[in-house]
């Protein structure tokens, strides 16, 4: 299986999907969007997900898949180490407004802060409203 590059099978009876025309450039190939193929065994997916140790995929029929993904991991590892270029942070800070954005909050959602003086004002207002309301009611009754 390992050396049989023309093999269409995975050794367990399943067919492996291959590009229709290997002569075409990679960029021109379309990835089928149909139902997922079963080209990679579930055990290999589990190993790639980190759920199983490598020892669990050391079987002849999976060695091609395992070798492939170990090779891919060489580049993925490099991608994992990529850093933001040094100049980007400065560029972002230059583009950010100099003044902090003003948050416009409706009055009914604003936090109510009660100080002794504001409590006194509120109490006086309530008292005045109550007196005015009482006077109006008494005038209406008479």
């Amino acid at each position: 299986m390992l050396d049989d590059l023309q093999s269409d099978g995975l050794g367990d009876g399943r067919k492996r999907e291959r590009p229709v025309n290997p002569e075409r450039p990679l960029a021109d190939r379309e990835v089928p969007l149909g139902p997922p193929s079963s080209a990679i065994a579930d055990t290999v997916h589990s190993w790639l997900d980190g759920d199983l140790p490598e020892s669990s995929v050391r079987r002849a029929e999976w060695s091609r898949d395992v070798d492939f993904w170990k090779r891919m991991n060489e580049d993925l590892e490099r991608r994992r180490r990529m850093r933001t270029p040094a100049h980007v942070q400065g560029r972002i800070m230059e583009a950010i407004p100099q003044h902090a954005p003003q948050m416009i909050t409706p009055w009914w959602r604003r936090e109510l802060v009660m100080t002794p003086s504001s409590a006194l004002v509120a109490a006086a207002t309530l008292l005045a409203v109550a007196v005015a309301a009482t006077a109006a009611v008494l005038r209406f009754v008479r």
Partner: protein
Amino acid sequence: MLAGERDEFTVLITRYSDPLYRHALCMTGSPDVAEDILQLSFIKAYQHLAEVRGRFDAWVFRIVANGCKDWLKNIRRSHLSYDEDDQPSSYATPEEELDRTELRSDLDVALASLPASLREAFVMKHVEGRSYEEMADLLGTTVGALKMRVHRAREALQALLEEKYA
């Protein structure tokens, strides 16, 4: 911090820019575009800091991820390779260095041929090293759906590249 203090916002940029840059770069394949998306995302985040509910990193990730998807929807890729990272090469010979560059380029092209949703899931899993649960939380979908996307991405990438690299 939520008051939008500029200096304190620098701390957030420093802390979160690397994983966000990696995401944008792997999604778009272009360092220039990735930098632009990162810049616009952080500006947007700064302007809307008061609206953050929950974790800042998850919130700003969604802004970047949406920026990448919008770019992919609107612009046909023309730039497929990106510059060297700053890491020292661990390859000993020029032949190995050449192999490395070729693999990188081939993987870029193969990734670019994937639908955005598969590419996104693959990058989040294999480059960003996120768990399926974390991915589901960030993308607002189920673990099962994301496993399916990652599996399909792997199978598509392997179908494209295995003749050369298996």
